[in-house]
């Protein structure tokens, strides 16, 4: 699979990842890795934030949509 963003710029670059939302192939220059907090537990005990986060691979457009929501 090739990087879609690079293809738009007229370049031919191999993709190293896929946007989890839209499925776009992305190279290392165009991939955005978002760290999502994980909370454990809840009522009747306060929930705890786990030290480990959940990685979320996104393209630029989905990342912007994700941040604006």
């Amino acid at each position, binding site marked *: 699979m090739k990087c879609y963003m690079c293809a738009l710029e007229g370049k031919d670059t191999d993709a190293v990842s896929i946007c989890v939302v839209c499925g776009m192939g992305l190279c290392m220059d165009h991939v955005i890795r978002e760290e999502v907090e994980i*909370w454990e*537990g*809840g*009522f*009747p*005990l*306060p*929930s*705890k*934030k786990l030290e480990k986060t959940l990685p979320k691979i996104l393209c630029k457009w989905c990342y912007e949509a994700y941040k604006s929501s």
Partner: protein
Amino acid sequence: MISLKKRCLAELIGTFFLVYIGTGAAIITLLISKGSAPPNAFNIGIGALGGLGDWFAIGMAFGLTVAVLIYAIGHISGCHINPAVTLALWAIKKFPTGEVAPYIIAQVIGASIASFALAASVGMDAVTVGGLGATAPFEGIGYLQAILVEMIGTFLLMLVLMGSAVDKRAAPGFAGISIGFTVAAVITTIGNITGASINPARTFGPYLGDLILGGSNLWNYFPIYLIGPVVGAVLAALIYNYISSE
């Protein structure tokens, strides 16, 4: 985890709304029935208009508030909003010793502010007619009987809490509805026996408000609403752990 200070603030806000909405319903019922002649000494006005329906309405005001608060702040502080629940969770080692006192202090402060807020919202009739929704044993109910009734009511509350929320086998998302229904059911039945506190903070607030604002001094009854709920909740937690284990 969210800081203890913020969690205590969540408990304070939760207990405030529990007491404001719940005891507010009792106060308003007494104000509505003011002037009507109760048919007997077992009837203080709540029940004069709709029989057990009056208590059902009050129970639902408490129960619905508990349910929505569980969804609102359950993940923040645990939404105990009841010292008996905090102590019961501590007794089964689910809640840290160092956080018990701050939680209970926050709950008691929240309940007290709610009682004063009710007096400010409704006026002095809330104190003189409504008694700020304070609980006391009804005509013919003895001290030990009242402790027993409060114990049984809180036992059911804690048993449902254990089964619907603490137990990892519980269906997720139903704790608020289950516990809210339980509170409403318990208050409907035992309301006209002890006032149905099942929560020491819920009784503390109106007692303090009545004392300071010139209402009845009911503090001699406070041990009923401390011993009954705490013993009932701790027993329920211990027994649930026993009956649910393999």
